[in-house]
């Protein structure tokens, strides 16, 4: 469905962020993109959704294809109309619009009122809690409700591929697991493809089918989730499953750093 081939992204003509990154997302799958802070995960999503230009960034090399069509030089609104919807990190709701207006605002790609109504009902089927908040200004919602709202916005548009940036940011574990289970249901029932960027590797790997690991603007590992979970490096760097509670020796630390350098 989505194929990112060997792209290079530069901000402000000088800062090289992505250095030959490739990944593919198959239709109907949830794909997780893991990585440390500053690895370039959000930049990857922005490259796909076309937001780079607004931030003075540019894809200088490589191609991005969606359903066989190149989209790397398209404007964000054209990309949205093709069915790619980025849910930005930090719960970007429009504070001064009501929940209802926030949802309707995302239907720019839809023409028929019937379809808007159908999608409106679908949102409340998955997020029944939002229904009672319809008339409320989005700025007054709690963090979790705002996160639900931005995901719902993606559902209102005719989204085929959702680019989801850190949905767990600042939310309680209980709420996060609820949102993730809804994402899984969306994927299974509505056949929505999701590219998920997440710091919480445990959670991301629990719903995804395929995973990519980024370091310093490159993909360093990729595999199906079951294999990734068994990978020693992933266990060590992301899941924290080894040496829990044990004191590291100097030798171990050096080894750790070396491994990390090799990976990058």
């Amino acid at each position: 469905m989505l194929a990112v081939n060997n792209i290079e992204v530069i901000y402000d003509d000088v800062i090289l962020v992505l250095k030959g990154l490739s990944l593919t997302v198959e239709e109907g799958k949830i794909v997780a993109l893991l990585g440390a802070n500053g690895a370039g995960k959000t930049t990857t999503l922005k490259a796909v959704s076309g937001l780079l230009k607004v931030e003075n960034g540019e894809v200088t090399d490589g191609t991005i294809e969606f359903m066989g069509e190149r989209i790397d030089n398209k404007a964000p609104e054209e990309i949205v109309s093709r069915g790619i919807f980025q849910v930005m990190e930090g719960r970007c709701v429009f504070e001064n619009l009501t929940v209802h207006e926030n949802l309707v605002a995302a239907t720019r790609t839809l023409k028929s009122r019937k379809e808007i109504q159908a999608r409106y009902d679908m949102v409340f089927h998955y997020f029944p809690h939002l229904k009672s908040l319809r008339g409320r200004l989005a700025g007054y919602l709690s963090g979790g409700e705002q996160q639900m709202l931005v995901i719902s916005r993606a559902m209102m548009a005719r989204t085929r591929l959702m680019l989801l940036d850190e949905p767990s940011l600042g939310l309680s574990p209980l709420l996060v697991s609820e949102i993730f289970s809804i994402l899984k249901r969306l994927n299974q029932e509505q056949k929505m493809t999701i590219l998920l960027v997440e710091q919480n590797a445990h959670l991301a790997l629990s719903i995804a089918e395929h995973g990519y690991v980024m370091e310093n603007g490159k993909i360093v590992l990729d595999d199906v989730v079951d294999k990734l979970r068994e990978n020693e490096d992933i266990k060590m760097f992301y899941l924290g499953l080894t040496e829990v509670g044990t004191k590291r020796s100097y030798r171990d630390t050096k080894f750790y750093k070396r491994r990390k350098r090799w990976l990058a």
Partner: protein
Amino acid sequence: MPSGLFHEKYETDERVFQTAFVKVWLFVFLAGCALFPFVASKYMISIMTEVGIAVIACHGLNLLTGFTGQISLGHAAFMGVGAYTCSILISTAGVPFVLALPAAGAMAALVGMVFGIPSLRLRGLYLAIATIAAQFIIEFVIRRWDGLTGGVEGMYVDPATLGPLHFNHPIHLYYLTFVLAVAATLAAKNIIRARSGRAFVAIRDRYLAAEVIGVNLFKYRLMSFAVSSFLAGIAGALMAQYLEVITHESFTIHQSIDYLAMCIIGGLGHLLGGIFGVAFWFILERMLEWLTTTLNSAFPDHITWFVSIREIVFGVTIIWFLIFEPDGLAARWRTIRAYWKLWPFSY
């Protein structure tokens, strides 16, 4: 006893008038405005005409600054473009008013769009400065283009006619302004609740998120400049009819700031803000006028003391609003309404 208002359907959510109560009072208000000239003095009618013109201009500015978040300090200049376009078309080209009025709006919209182009790159204070440039450039052109605008001497405006209406008659002009002010309010309301209005607010609140839902930033920023300037142009054309003589001094940066102040007092980003702000402004102005004349006659030796009362009070009012009621009168009105709607079971 009904307490609160609950919508069960998508259609009721979208309705313009949420309750019959609102409709009735709106009708009463409009009927009052329509009957006003029969009971009011000539002076009051001319003041109300000015109010109507200011309401149209403020709706324009509110769409641009309040809803799209683009501060403009060149609004009076765009009004000037409309005023001169309409007057020149009527007196030199003999175009009927019915065509000259929309042409004035269109011309102002075009000029507004040209000066709106920097909005793609500029935001906030920087854009405000770019619009000040628009103000000065337009003023300069009006002052120097003698052949077209009459230069520093200004130009006489031929009173226009529209069917049985002759606009040298203040009551006729009042009715035209009244109808156009209502039309502008309706148009603004519908722009706000439609796709474009949501795009404006989305751009103001979060332009990046607006872009990912498929809003073309440049197009909508320019569109908001166009709509705003169009309304300014119409208001300017009416102003020209009202003033009868227009010069480059009729549309200076002071007026631009006044309109911005009216919008701030009324409430940026609220449709009612334009109306409340203008009403408040004019009432305060009349009161201060009365106060100044009273003080002048009471203390004829100290006239110079009272010259700046107006400026001082307006300055203090704006500061007061910015500190204590930054969302303006419209927000206060909303709070009061919500209180009564939920009474006696608030919370």
